[in-house]
């Protein structure tokens, strides 16, 4: 069943689905590496991930090599993550799964358990984990530069992806912006402060109302409390105007007895009227390198499937809070 991955030499990787907008970024970076043999499955026929070996079905991707892939990258619609990850575990194949790990806790738990039992690496694709801004925040808290941290404000605002209708399909996405954008900051906070004690959320459907319909929320504010007393609020809204020169951004402000720190993970750019020329550390590459290193060593790395599961729990608690109108104890979820 589990075949040891080559610690050197070429790794065979299948990128499963082009449904997520990150698929193209991962594919081009993997394709550029000499020690990666990449096959991309595009069963939905999006057709916009190019310059690589494309196949039209998952089956063809699984069968692209005589003994199958060493690892897969899952970039399907959120609701389809589970089947792909369970299949990978069954085949003894390592997995990098796009965030959110799953659309509900049960699926995420099953995925984590299956990969653990199979002894394969499961990582969740949180590129911002590798941004220098996130590292600066972790370091400032760890070395005490901010003193006792009492408050966090995080904003992860973006445009609504206009080439992928499933982002507002509650069945496929699991929800709207609350599902799409809460988890990035939740993961960074998890890596510093652990799990929150309570979660409160309020949402609306005013932005992109024609696509949101009665289903996916497009605006959201999620407030987390921690047993330490720390309070954190995440604005997960798709509030970046459609004509803005960049997709959106991610900022975190931390306040403590030692002062304040504000980090902007996507600040580095050359600007101009309607221009946004990003530069700086490529977090997508850093994520892929971490995953490839984990595949070669067989030891998982952060951001793990476990943190993927923990952030799914935060989202599930936020959704329960939206339903009840009250804060929710994470332990009750």
């Amino acid at each position: 069943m589990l075949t040891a991955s080559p610690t050197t030499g070429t790794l065979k990787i299948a990128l499963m689905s082009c449904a997520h907008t990150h698929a193209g970024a991962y594919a081009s970076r993997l394709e550029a590496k000499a020690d990666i043999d990449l096959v991309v499955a595009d069963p939905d026929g999006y057709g916009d991930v190019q310059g690589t070996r494309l196949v039209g079905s998952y089956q063809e991707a699984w069968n692209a090599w005589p003994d199958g892939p060493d690892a897969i990258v899952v970039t399907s619609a959120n609701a389809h993550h589970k089947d792909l990850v369970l299949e990978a575990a069954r085949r003894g194949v390592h997995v990098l799964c796009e965030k959110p790990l799953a659309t509900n806790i049960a699926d995420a738990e099953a995925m984590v358990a299956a990969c653990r039992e199979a002894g394969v690496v499961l990582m969740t694709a949180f590129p911002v984990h590798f941004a220098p801004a996130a590292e600066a925040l972790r370091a400032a808290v760890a070395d005490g530069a901010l003193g006792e941290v009492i408050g966090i404000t995080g904003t992860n605002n973006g445009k609504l992806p206009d080439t992928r209708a499933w982002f507002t399909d509650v069945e496929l996405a699991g929800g709207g912006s609350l599902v799409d954008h809460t988890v990035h900051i939740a993961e960074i906070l998890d890596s510093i402060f652990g799990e929150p004690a309570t979660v409160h959320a309020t949402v609306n459907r005013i932005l992109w109302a024609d696509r949101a319909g009665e289903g996916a929320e497009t605006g959201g504010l999620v407030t987390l409390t921690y047993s330490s007393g720390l309070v954190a609020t995440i604005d997960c809204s798709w509030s970046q105007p459609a004509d803005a020169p960049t997709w959106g951004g991610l900022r975190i402000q931390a306040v403590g007895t030692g002062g304040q720190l504000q980090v902007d993970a996507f600040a580095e750019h050359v600007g101009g009227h309607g221009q946004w020329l990003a530069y700086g550390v490529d977090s997508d590459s850093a994520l892929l390198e971490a995953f490839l290193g984990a595949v070669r060593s067989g030891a998982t790395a952060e951001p793990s499937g476990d943190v993927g599961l923990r952030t799914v729990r935060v989202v599930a608690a936020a959704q329960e809070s939206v339903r009840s109108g009250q804060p929710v104890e994470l332990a009750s979820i």
Partner: protein
Amino acid sequence: MPHEDPAAPLRVGIIGTGGISRAHTPGWIETGAELHCHSLEGADAFAETFGATVHATLEELLAAVDVVDVCTPTPVHAEIVHQALDAGKDVVCEKPLALTTEDARSVVEHAQRVGRTLFPAHVVRFFPQYAAAQRAVETGAIGQIAVLRFERTGSFPTQPWFGDESQSGGIVMDQMIHDIDQAIWLAGPVERVYAQQSISSETDTVRTAHAVLTHVGGAISHCRGLWGAPGTQFRYTFDLAGDAGRLQYDSAGDPGVVFDEVATQRQSTGDGFLPDVSGMRSPYAEEILEFAAALTSGGPSRVSAADGAYAVEVSRAALESLRTGRSITC
């Protein structure tokens, strides 16, 4: 209600001559008002600075003026406003109008009953950045407003009564009420409020509060207040997202006047409690001039007594949320 004799200078009684009175008074002077004052302490120094007539008692002051400007600590606002209304005076009252919803409503009803004007001094409505944003939102510049964020950052107030929740209402009632009022001004009445506060376990002067408002019209707002570590500079920001655009402002990113690091060390940096308004037309003066014009000639004002009471009501709901850990329906 218009002042009886528009030709005569308005006689204004400043009650309480602490910090905020010194922000209000230049505006009254600009209107040409005749200044009177009464205070438990500091009245003589105030009178010397601004050229006011000191009155030993509140009754004596009320007998000598047309309008009072209540600048006392919050707990006695309502009592003094009632007394001034009973004496037939129009009233300007520093925010919050009162500590409790009941007291705030009571002074509003009292003013209506006796036909006098009561203006709560919600000065942030007079800051040019907020005023510009409100006009733009009102005229549809960003479409339907959806997600609002406000931050207000300062140092712990120097007067110790601010730290006493029972006296000041704490950071929510004293500082965040500005942004709660902005959220209401921009996105309308509030259906429910969820709030959390975090106070440093090392020093209770460092504290932050978060309030999330769900508006009746569907918009959602986040207000974040901070009394930061000693030396924290005053800063205020807002971010208003609508379905047809976005408005953002950050006082720390305002590029009008920028000193470099060397020069900054040579500048006085203020007390960190009240904002530095030296780079703009004083919003405090703007506020007092608008109130004075409304009182003397019946002009419009952008803030009403009812607005002041409603800001207290929503802030009280936030305090109730802090106390119970629950989301509170307004």
